[in-house]
């Protein structure tokens, strides 16, 4: 066997690929499911928190700031380990899937809150004054006038952050979630061959390249000429 053959044998071994493809496909779908639930819940959480913060109830604001700062500072893996291994000792036990979903939703929520918040405060005061002067309430102004403009500004940073955080679903392999990386490393140790890792990488590309492209499309779609 020359070097090239050895390379192909270890990384692109067709027998191994054939054998473990189904489990990687399972991992792919589980990762999709997990990612979608994180994105939907995390962005919704961030938006709701940003809206609450715009109402300026000082004590509530402080809580939200504390939450956002903590979750942005802690590595997600630390939280996952904490939730999965420490919480059962106080009687709360969750499946690995739930722990990963909850952790990454909270983390995405924290980042999304800050991004939405920055978008909201960047809207010119004149927009608020114009809307309020016609009798719109604070909430009506926020929803009909400020948010639609703020969201356009937040699309690029939010897309980037969302992608970065959903990639952390790979941390699920630490707590037994059968997502892509877990399936790939398991298959690798059973087969003693690195080909499943290549499959795993391909699965991640398949999952995230459309998301990146979609993010770029949405960015051009939402960028409209400023006055």
């Amino acid at each position, binding site marked *: 066997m020359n070097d090239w053959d050895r390379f192909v044998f270890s990384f692109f071994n067709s027998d191994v690929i054939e054998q473990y493809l189904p489990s990687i496909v399972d991992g792919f779908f589980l990762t999709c499911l997990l990612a979608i639930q994180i994105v939907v819940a995390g962005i919704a959480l961030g938006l709701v928190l940003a809206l609450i913060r715009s109402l300026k109830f000082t004590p509530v604001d402080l809580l939200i700031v504390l939450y956002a700062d903590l979750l942005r500072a802690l590595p997600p893996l630390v939280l996952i380990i904490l939730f999965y291994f420490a919480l059962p000792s106080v009687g709360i036990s969750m499946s690995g899937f739930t722990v990963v979903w909850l952790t990454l939703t909270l983390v995405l929520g924290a980042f999304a809150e800050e991004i939405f918040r920055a978008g909201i405060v960047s809207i010119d005061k004149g927009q608020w004054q114009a*809307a309020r002067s016609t*009798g719109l309430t604070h909430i009506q102004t926020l929803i009909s006038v400020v948010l639609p403009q703020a969201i356009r500004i937040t699309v690029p940073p939010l897309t980037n952050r969302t992608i970065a955080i959903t990639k952390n679903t790979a941390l699920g392999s630490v707590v037994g979630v059968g997502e892509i990386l877990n399936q790939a490393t398991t298959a690798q140790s059973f087969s003693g061959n690195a080909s499943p890792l290549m499959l795993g990488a391909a699965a991640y590309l398949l999952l995230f390249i459309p998301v990146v492209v979609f993010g770029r499309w949405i960015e051009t779609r939402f960028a409209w000429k400023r006055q």
Partner: protein
Amino acid sequence: MTNPYLLDVRGLHKSFGHTEVLAGIDFQVAERELVFVIGPSGSGKSTLLRCCNLLEEPTSGTVTVDGVDLTAPGVDINKMRQRIGMVFQSFNLYPHMTASGNVTLALRKVLKQGRAEAAETALAALERVGMADKAEAFPNELSGGQQQRVAIARALALEPKIMLFDEPTSALDPELVGSVLKVMQDMRESGMTMVVVSHEMQFARAAADRVTFIDGGLIVEEGPPEQMFSNPTFPRTREFLARVAHA
């Protein structure tokens, strides 16, 4: 308890932190009156206007509009603001909505008009300012003068009792000023009560019933335009007018 004034401001003080911007303003506007407010930059003109619809909360004093004291507890300020139109120097149109959308928003959300009814009301308001043919245009497709006329239509559509203008033409290229002043002239002729902060002295001469000069958060003097412009009482007024005339 009938108040002869549509707008009646009494003992108005406004401070931002430790700086007192309005230092006790008494200011009355009768129905159908057009009052011009002039004064140096930073004298508190915009703050006074914003206190008239409580966009700015007065530190003390009362603001009575159409017989209702806006500073009294329990007043539905959003309802009162329908009766007080406001036009801004920077137009402040909603950039994500068409001209028509800008006008219909409050009609739908505040007056609870249906989609069709609101569109009809908006078109009539845009017609009044000569902008009906641009109803479907977005703000960034309009000139400054056109944007300002749409902003006026947005306020007019709610059928306010009084309109407040904060330097409505200062952000416009000189050749576009006329179109906005023309709309304001039309409104005046149809009997609208108006308070106008502006440096358009010619327009003041032609259209104002009264000119009010503010400096340092106080009304220095007021009177009919001829008197104010040709024979003001106070040196401060004279100096200001001389400066504006040379600008």
